[in-house]
C-alpha cells in the first residue's frame, strides 16, 4: 500500500486512455507486467553527489521513507572528499558502499541502476561504461559536453538495450502534462512563437574551500568551456526540451549571440545569451538567458492565435477572455460613467501595450515534485526492464540542439543539424 497520496493520484491519472497515447512514459507506470517483482528491492547507485546529486539522493530517501518505491541506495560515488563523506553520512543506508572511482562501483553486480549527477563533461564516459556494464542509467541533463559524446551515449543505449533516461523533469510535471494535452487539442490555436527565458542575478559561483584555489575548475566547472556550455546546457536545455515537446518535432535551424557582459571574473562561458530556433512550419522559438537581472525570472510562453500558455506559472490567457457576468459589466459601466475623466487632447492612437488580464490556471489539481516523480518512474522502468524510447529521444534532441546553439553563437552563423546526428 502506497503511503504517498500524491503518487497514488498520479498513478490514477497515468492510467487514463488520453494519457496513454500522448504520454506513454506516464501510462507505463500504471501497467503491471514488471520483470522484477515489486517486493524485490531496486538497488540504486548515485555517481556524483554534489549539489544536484545530493538533491536526488534526498528525493530517493523521501521515497524510501514514504514507501512510494521499494528502493535502496546501495552505493554512492564521488571523487571530491567532502561530498563523498556527506553522502555516506546522509544516504540513510548504514551499509552503503562508497567509491571514489565509478569503475569500481560498476563491478557491483547487485546494482540495478545508476544515477549520474556529475559535472556535464563526465556524463558520457560514465553513462556509456555503465550501460556496457549492464546497468540501467538515469543521467542528469544535459547529456554530454560534445555532439559526438551525446551521439555515442545514444548509440550505446541502442546497442545495449539499457535504459537511458535524461533528467528532464518537466516531462513528469502534471501541469505540463495537462498543458501539452490542451495544446495538442488546439485550445490555444496555431502556435506561431514560443518564448522562453531564464534570468538570474547571481554570479553562479560556488564557494571554494579556504586555501584551495586549485579547486576552482572542479567546483565551478559550469563557468569553464572545457566542462560546460554554461547557461545553454545547464538551464536552456530544459526549455529547449519543452519547446520540442510542444512542437512535437525538432527545429530546422538555430542562430544566436552571446557575450560576457557583466561577470568579468575569469569565466569563459557567456553570461548573456540569445538564440532563435526555427521549425520547418515557420514557428520560432526565442530563448534567452542572463545572470545580471532577475525581474522576469523563468518562463516558457507558448503563443497561439487563440491564446497563450505560461507553463512555469501554470497560466493560460485566451486572446478573447471569457466575458464577465452581465451584472459586473453593468456595475463597471456605471462606475466608468460616474468616475472616468473626459480626455482633452492626448495621444491619437492607443498604444499596443500588454493586455491586462490575469488569465486562468492551466491545472488546478495539485502541486507535485516532478523531480521525485521522474525518479519514481526510473525505478518503475527498471522493474519493467525498459523505458519508453521517447524519453531518451527528448533528452537527446534537447542536448543536441543546445550544443548546436552554442556552435551557432561561436561562429556567428545559422546552423542546421548535420545528418550524422539525426536519429
Amino acid at each position, binding site marked *: 500500500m502506497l503511503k504517498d497520496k500524491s503518487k497514488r493520484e498520479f498513478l490514477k491519472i497515468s492510467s487514463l486512455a488520453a494519457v496513454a497515447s500522448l504520454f506513454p512514459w506516464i501510462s507505463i507506470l500504471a501497467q503491471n507486467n514488471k520483470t522484477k517483482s515489486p517486493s524485490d528491492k531496486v538497488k540504486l547507485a548515485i555517481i556524483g553527489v554534489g549539489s544536484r546529486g545530493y538533491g536526488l539522493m534526498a528525493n530517493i530517501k523521501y521515497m524510501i521513507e514514504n514507501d512510494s518505491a521499494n528502493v535502496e541506495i546501495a552505493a554512492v560515488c564521488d571523487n571530491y572528499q567532502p561530498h563523498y563523506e556527506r553522502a555516506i553520512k546522509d544516504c540513510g543506508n548504514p551499509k552503503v558502499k562508497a567509491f571514489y572511482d565509478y569503475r569500481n562501483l560498476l563491478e557491483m553486480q547487485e546494482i540495478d541502476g545508476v544515477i549520474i549527477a556529475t559535472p556535464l563533461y563526465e556524463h558520457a564516459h560514465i553513462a556509456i561504461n555503465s550501460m556496457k556494464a549492464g546497468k540501467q542509467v538515469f543521467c542528469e541533463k544535459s547529456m554530454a559536453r560534445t555532439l559526438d559524446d551525446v551521439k555515442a551515449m545514444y548509440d550505446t543505449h541502442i546497442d545495449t538495450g539499457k535504459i537511458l533516461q535524461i533528467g528532464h523533469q518537466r516531462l513528469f510535471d502534471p501541469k505540463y502534462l495537462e498543458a501539452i494535452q490542451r495544446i495538442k487539442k488546439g485550445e490555444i490555436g496555431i502556435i506561431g512563437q514560443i518564448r522562453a527565458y531564464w534570468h538570474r542575478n547571481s554570479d553562479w559561483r560556488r564557494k571554494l574551500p579556504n586555501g584551495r584555489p586549485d579547486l576552482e575548475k572542479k567546483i565551478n566547472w559550469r563557468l569553464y568551456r572545457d566542462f560546460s556550455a554554461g547557461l545553454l546546457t545547464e538551464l536552456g536545455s530544459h526549455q529547449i526540451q519543452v519547446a520540442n515537446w510542444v512542437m512535437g518535432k525538432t527545429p530546422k535551424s538555430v542562430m544566436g549571440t552571446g557575450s560576457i557582459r557583466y561577470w568579468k571574473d575569469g569565466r569563459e562561458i557567456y553570461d548573456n545569451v540569445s538564440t532563435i530556433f526555427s521549425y520547418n512550419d515557420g514557428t520560432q522559438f526565442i530563448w534567452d538567458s542572463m545572470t545580471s537581472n532577475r525581474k522576469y525570472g523563468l518562463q516558457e510562453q507558448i503563443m497561439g492565435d487563440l491564446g497563450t500558455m505560461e507553463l512555469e506559472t501554470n497560466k493560460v490567457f485566451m486572446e478573447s477572455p471569457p466575458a464577465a*457576468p*452581465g*451584472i*459586473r*459589466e*453593468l*456595475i463597471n459601466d456605471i462606475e466608468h460613467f460616474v468616475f472616468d475623466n473626459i480626455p482633452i487632447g492626448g495621444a491619437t492612437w492607443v498604444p499596443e501595450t500588454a493586455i491586462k488580464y490575469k488569465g486562468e490556471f492551466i491545472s488546478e489539481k495539485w502541486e507535485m515534485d516532478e523531480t521525485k516523480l521522474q525518479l519514481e518512474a526510473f525505478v518503475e522502468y527498471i522493474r519493467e526492464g525498459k523505458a519508453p524510447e521517447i524519453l531518451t529521444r527528448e533528452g537527446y534532441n534537447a542536448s543536441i540542439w543546445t550544443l548546436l546553439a552554442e556552435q551557432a553563437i561561436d561562429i556567428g552563423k545559422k546552423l542546421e543539424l548535420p545528418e550524422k546526428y539525426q536519429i
Partner: protein
Amino acid sequence: MHDIVISKERIKIELKKIMIFFVVAFILNIYSIIKYNTKWIEIFTQLHWVMILTGVLYVFSLIILGIKLLVQFFRK
C-alpha cells in the same frame, strides 16, 4: 441612558424597503443579462451580486433619509 425602541411598524417599513431594493437589483441583473448577452444561469449564479446591490441601495436610502432628517432638524 434610554433604551432605543424600534417599533414593529418601523421594522415592517424597513423590511419592505429591503424587499423593494432586492426586486430592483434582481431586475437589474435580468436587464444586464439581456443588455450584455450573457448566460441566463446568471440569474442564480450572480445572486451574491444582487444581494450586494440590495445592500448598497439600502445604505444609499439610509443616507438620503439621514440628510432629509438633518434638513428638517435645521429648518425647525
